[in-house]
């Protein structure tokens, strides 16, 4: 970083631009928190409130009276955790194969995978709904977990990552040492791609936690839904009447995810940098 040394003015401009970006990223959170502390009539008045009010606890009480907030949060936690575990295992295994091995049909299978990646989820939505209704999964969390257990995106992402991060010499050496396929996967590939896994894991967890379209359809019992569906019910039916309460719901729904991110971010931020530099 020799070019930056001695150019303090450029450094200040750099950090000033980056901080503007940070403020833009953070502002909607601030705005949501502020609104969750006001009553609807305060929110609807001009000028907009930019400082906290005093009605947060009132909004929270109203929120808990209106929806089963913790029940739907428990559902979201169950689905997101189960799917993340399955995706990390199954996607990285498939990605390892596509990244580092040659076998008949590999290119065709990978092309099929990319095609599947482009298949809109809604394409399967109607039949999936009909099939799951037949086997009795509709309305339960199973209907969200099983179809999401492996996905084309994760395989694509891990393959890209593994192709550059796992060196062929390393695999050749382990092969000469007598390591079989599963040992290579577990002891050679996975340790090297831990940053990629952390990224995929957090990405998957967030994606599941935030998933909305399919749960909206599959969870037919309005009293047993995930957090996002509950939140949307709140906005759809009460949005025009009690905005402060809806905002409180939005803010509280973000908290668990922010906690997961704060824990996982150290993985992403530390290891991604280290792993990328090593690769």
């Amino acid at each position: 970083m020799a070019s930056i040394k001695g150019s303090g003015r450029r450094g200040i401009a750099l950090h000033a631009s980056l901080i503007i970006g940070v403020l833009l990223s953070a502002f909607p959170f601030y705005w949501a928190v502020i609104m969750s502390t006001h009553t609807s009539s305060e929110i609807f008045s001009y000028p907009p409130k930019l400082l906290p009010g005093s009605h947060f606890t009132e909004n929270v009480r109203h929120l808990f009276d209106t929806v089963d907030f913790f029940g739907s949060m428990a559902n979201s936690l169950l689905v997101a955790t189960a799917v993340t575990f399955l995706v990390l295992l199954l996607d990285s295994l498939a990605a390892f194969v596509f990244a580092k091995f040659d076998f008949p049909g590999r290119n065709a299978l990978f092309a099929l995978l990319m095609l599947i990646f482009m298949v809109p989820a809604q394409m399967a939505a109607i039949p999936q709904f009909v099939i799951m209704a037949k086997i009795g999964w509709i309305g339960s969390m199973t209907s969200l977990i099983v179809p999401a257990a492996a996905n084309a995106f994760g395989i694509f992402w891990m393959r890209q990552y593994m192709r550059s991060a796992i060196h062929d010499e390393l695999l050749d050496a382990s092969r000469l040492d007598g390591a079989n396929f599963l040992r290579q996967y577990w002891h050679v590939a996975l340790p090297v791609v831990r940053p990629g896994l952390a990224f995929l894991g957090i990405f998957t967890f967030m994606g599941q936690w935030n998933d909305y379209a399919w749960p909206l359809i599959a969870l037919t019992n309005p009293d047993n839904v995930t957090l996002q569906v509950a939140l949307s019910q709140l906005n759809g039916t009460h949005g025009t009447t009690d905005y402060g309460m809806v905002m409180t719901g939005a803010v509280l729904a973000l908290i668990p995810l922010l906690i997961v991110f704060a824990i996982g971010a150290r993985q992403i931020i530390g290891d991604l940098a280290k792993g990328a530099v090593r690769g």
Partner: protein
Amino acid sequence: MAVAEQTPPAVDRIRPATAPPRTGWRRHWHLYAAISPFYLLFLAFGLIPVGFSLYLSLHRWDGLGSMEWAGLTQYQYLFTDVDFWQSIGNTLIIWALATFPMIFLAMVTAVMLNSAVRFRNAYRFAYFLPNVTSVVAIAIVFGSVFSTNFGLVNALLQAVGLDQVAWLNTPWGIKVAIATLMTWQWTGYNAIIFLAGLQTIPGDLYEAARIDGAGPVQTFFRITLPLLRPTLLFVLVVSTVTGLQSFSEPQVLLQTASNESTFSGGPDHAGRTMVLYFFQQTFDNNDFGYGAAVAWGIFLVVVLFSLINWRLVQRRGEQ
């Protein structure tokens, strides 16, 4: 495809020339086993449903009664359905309004992050944050930011003496609001992907460029951008596939903006994306047959558009 150019793995080289070759399929059974879970799940929850949806699209069905053979009439109708074409237009406009600023800003941010040594981790944390948020929660927040009467954007416009805009009531306002939400949510995420790509570029390349007297602009276009192309391709493909299937953003943002249906996409259906239209036809109108045809139409648009993007980025790479 790029995978075809890879050199054969070392296993072929170390196998003694005299050993009888085992047939390909059996020698590699463990590899097929390793990739099979995805394909099996896909079979059960992808291929069979997709085949079924093809079958459905050739029928009339309300989801309850008996199916009625319709031949290709659903597709005939789809092709001339003004509402479907409008939803394609809406989707592409929103996608373009969101994606181009997003990729530009993400790349600029990544380059800045790459040269900022101090506070880099804090910056990355902050930039990733928007992507952590649920679309439902943040669409509710953006709904209030763009609200006509009490929204922050209009308050700002009023403060500098400009006319207020009925953001969620005009065709362009709706699209800008949705695209702003998407740009806000995805810029930091893609910046971090770009940053990871930037960091795989060996430092000695920059060192060599510096010794050769290359300036920062020259370095960016001659070294950074070409070596970042795989990352750019990744970002573009993901943005296309997800952006063209936007559903939650317009649905939550506009679900109360019209009395017609929660999938109607606001006044004049200006925010009704392709997927919203699919949901409206299927689950509001209970027209499962036509819904299936719409889903196939969407698939075609997404594939066509992804191929165009893929080719554009690859063609540039050959030059």
